[in-house]
């Protein structure tokens, strides 16, 4: 069970990384979401073996560790906020520039080309 979860986390994070490397903002957003899920699974796994319910019965030895679940919940809350902001930003970017690509830094390019022509 744990091995399956580890594999899921691995696949999710590799897909997420691949999507992040693209220049399309919508892919970047999805990639970020996937990476987030991968890490959340990792966090759940950090609580030990799966399959046990948190707080059931009287014997603490039978509980799953509740703390990672609290971590995951918090991180989901945070990624909910961040991803909705990111979507809004991507949407705004599409509105302003008319396409879905990450733009280059204009000033950076100016400095780079300037350097080839010698000092100021």
């Amino acid at each position, binding site marked *: 069970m744990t091995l399956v979860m580890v594999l899921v986390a691995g696949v999710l994070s590799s897909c997420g990384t691949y999507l*992040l490397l693209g220049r399309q*903002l919508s892919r*970047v957003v999805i990639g*970020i979401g996937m*990476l*987030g899920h991968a*890490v*959340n699974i*990792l*966090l759940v*796994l*950090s*609580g030990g073996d799966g399959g046990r319910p948190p707080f059931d019965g009287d014997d603490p030895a039978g509980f799953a*560790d509740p*703390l*990672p679940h609290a*971590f995951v919940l*918090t*991180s989901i809350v*945070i990624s909910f*906020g*961040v991803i909705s*902001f*990111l979507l809004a*930003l*991507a949407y*705004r*970017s599409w509105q*302003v*520039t008319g396409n879905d690509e*990450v*733009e280059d*830094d*204009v*000033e*950076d390019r100016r*400095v780079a080309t*300037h*350097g080839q022509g010698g000092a*100021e």
Partner: protein
Amino acid sequence: MNALIGLPIILPLLGAAASIALGAHRPLQRLISIGVLATLTATTAVTLVRVDRNGITAVQVGGWEAPTGISLVADRLSVVLLLTALVTLFAVLVYAVGQGSFDQPGSEARHVGFHPLYLILTAGVSFAFLTGDLFNLFVAFEVMLMASYALLTLGGRADQVRSGMTYVVISLIASTLFLAALAYVYAATGTVNMADLHDKIAALPAGLRSSLAVLLIVVFGIKAAIFPLFFWLPDSYPTAPTAITAVFAGLLTKIGVYTMIRTQTVMFTPATRPGTLLLVVAGATMVVGVLGAVAQNEIKRLLSFHIVSQIGYMVMGLGLFTVAGVAGAIIFTVHQILVKTSLFLVGGIIEEKAGTGRLARLGGLARTEPLLAVLFLLPALSLAGIPPLSGFVGKLALVDAGLDDRAYVVVGVSLVVSLLTLYSMTKIWAGAFWGTRSEGASDLPPAKGTTGTAIMTSATAALVSVTVAIAVFAGPLHELSTRAAADLVDPTPYIEAVLGR
């Protein structure tokens, strides 16, 4: 009285709630923000005196005991930096209110959201300094970053959206890595309380221990913009309105440095700290940052590269892992927060008055704006480390510590980088303050002498005088940071205070 420690987190949040509710009344919003920050600066000064006198103070949130519950810890390091941060935030807020009279996209006057977001940013910054456990550090970062994302893109111009996107994505990747590091730490030790982790990490196998240390360095290194993780910074900071860039430049990267100092000292035992790695990174950061700065032709971008370069000095102090080294890093961080913020504020006033920040189109400001010239010259010379200004105090402490520790290479690099820093500061000075206005500048609006600029100038002047005060009170500050560093290099008092042993 210990409850005062939680105040810098709760009060700004309440202020933000009130500020949102009063959205339509700008004067009231300003009053709330200024009131909150003034109160916090005062209470934090009190806390600093108390903590320095009585030792480290810990508060357990909700009354749950330490390894289980959430601890807020005020030690000398966190309170000194918190006080510096609040002073900076206060000065920049006043500056932003002054700048509000100009009609700029993203400026304070145009957006209902500015004040609430600024207060939430304050809460996040305070939380990051005060929290005693790793997971809440993550939460604090997120609170701070959420506010910063929104502040950076207020106005929604095309270049803001572009650079905001880079910033958000990079920060998100850092946060994701942070969560992964948290998962590993928790899986290995079963706790996220930093004081508790000190002993538990020491018991882990060496390979696991160093991979945790390096993962944390990468996470905080992205936030602090160390080499080779700095590339996002000069791209994203300069596009925001000046007041916001100033806060980001002065504060947010330094919080990365603070967390690096905190985690590497408190969580890891002396034998397992990655000293050499940090020294190499420090040297590379200094050199690459300053070379990038030398190449730039625009004030804000030049200063942005300097942020990177100066981060190297702080990492160098940390990398030595001696009391003198860490003390030097602390003094240098305090000095940097103030100096870098005031330089950006001066750069903003120049842009406001001359209509551009491009060095080629500026000139002759020393004659027309002598006060501005002085306000620029003091922090600029301080940044380059000219005695007797605050930068000299910080660099002297670092170089001294480096020589004690026989780290000659990194000391040599830091001295050469100082010279280059001076060179690039001269570039701004010669470009903006000396000479005459270049051709093409005549179509710019003439210098405006409104109350807005007066407020901006006085806020900057206040911040510059604080940096001068650091140089004057260098002795007491050095003693204070040495005491702070002693508690970090051997974190036993910290652990005892948090775990209540």
